[in-house]
């Protein structure tokens, strides 16, 4: 049942990886259905300064064949927990300049509370489980980032 409902509803959901610039306004307006009253959007972008260290640009890479299915799993899990109607997740890959958007998560719901909760849960889980990696290029070198609460402890050594 849950699966069927997900499949029906998810016709308007979208999960994308792209190397093109993200148009946040356009992405969020793709999840505006007639029964809804609110869309909550997270716009994540490249920060110039982190604890006094200057970032010049970032490069994101993904295991695309696994990242998209993982995003869809997150979406199905979000629907189990929250009264939401549509979900859109778009993550950019490749080189990003300062201020450019890396990720957009848009969630539409009849009531805003569910949209806020689902959007916050989705970005937390995306950062934890979706196979995407960020390499920061600082003025004085580069480094692969460590994620937040990655599932290493749960899966394998």
């Amino acid at each position: 049942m849950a699966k069927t409902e997900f499949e029906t509803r998810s016709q308007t959901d979208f999960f994308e990886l792209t190397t093109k610039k993200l148009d946040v306004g356009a992405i969020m307006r793709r999840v505006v259905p007639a029964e809804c009253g609110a869309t909550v959007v997270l716009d994540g972008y490249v920060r110039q300064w982190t604890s006094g260290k200057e970032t010049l640009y970032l490069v994101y890479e993904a295991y695309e064949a696994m990242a998209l299915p993982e995003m869809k799993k997150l979406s199905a899990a979000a629907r189990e927990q929250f009264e939401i109607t549509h979900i859109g997740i778009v993550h950019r890959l490749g080189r990003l300049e300062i201020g450019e958007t890396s990720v957009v998560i848009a969630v539409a719901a009849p009531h805003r509370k569910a949209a806020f909760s689902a959007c916050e849960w989705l970005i937390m889980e995306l950062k934890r489980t979706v196979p995407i990696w960020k390499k920061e290029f600082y003025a004085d070198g580069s480094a692969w980032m460590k994620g937040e609460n990655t599932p290493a402890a749960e899966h394998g050594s």
Partner: protein
Amino acid sequence: MSKNNRDNICVKVLFFGAAREAAGTEEVDIFTTFPATVQTVKDAVFSRYEKVSLFARSLMISVNREYAADETAVNDLDEIAFLPPVSGG
């Protein structure tokens, strides 16, 4: 160990992020014998790519695009990915 050709399996190993840079390659075929687990593949990879073993404790492994444990069985032609801690978002 195996006397029988049918016991030989070949898995495709993918490296990402810091593990890809450590391995110096995106992809390699690893040959081993059946039955095998994720741990068998890790041991083979770590002995061949010493730098990758430096990530051993933080690496996640996927088998056919699903997160897997060290005990997970692997079969001929499986796609095994070596995944450093993810940092999307």
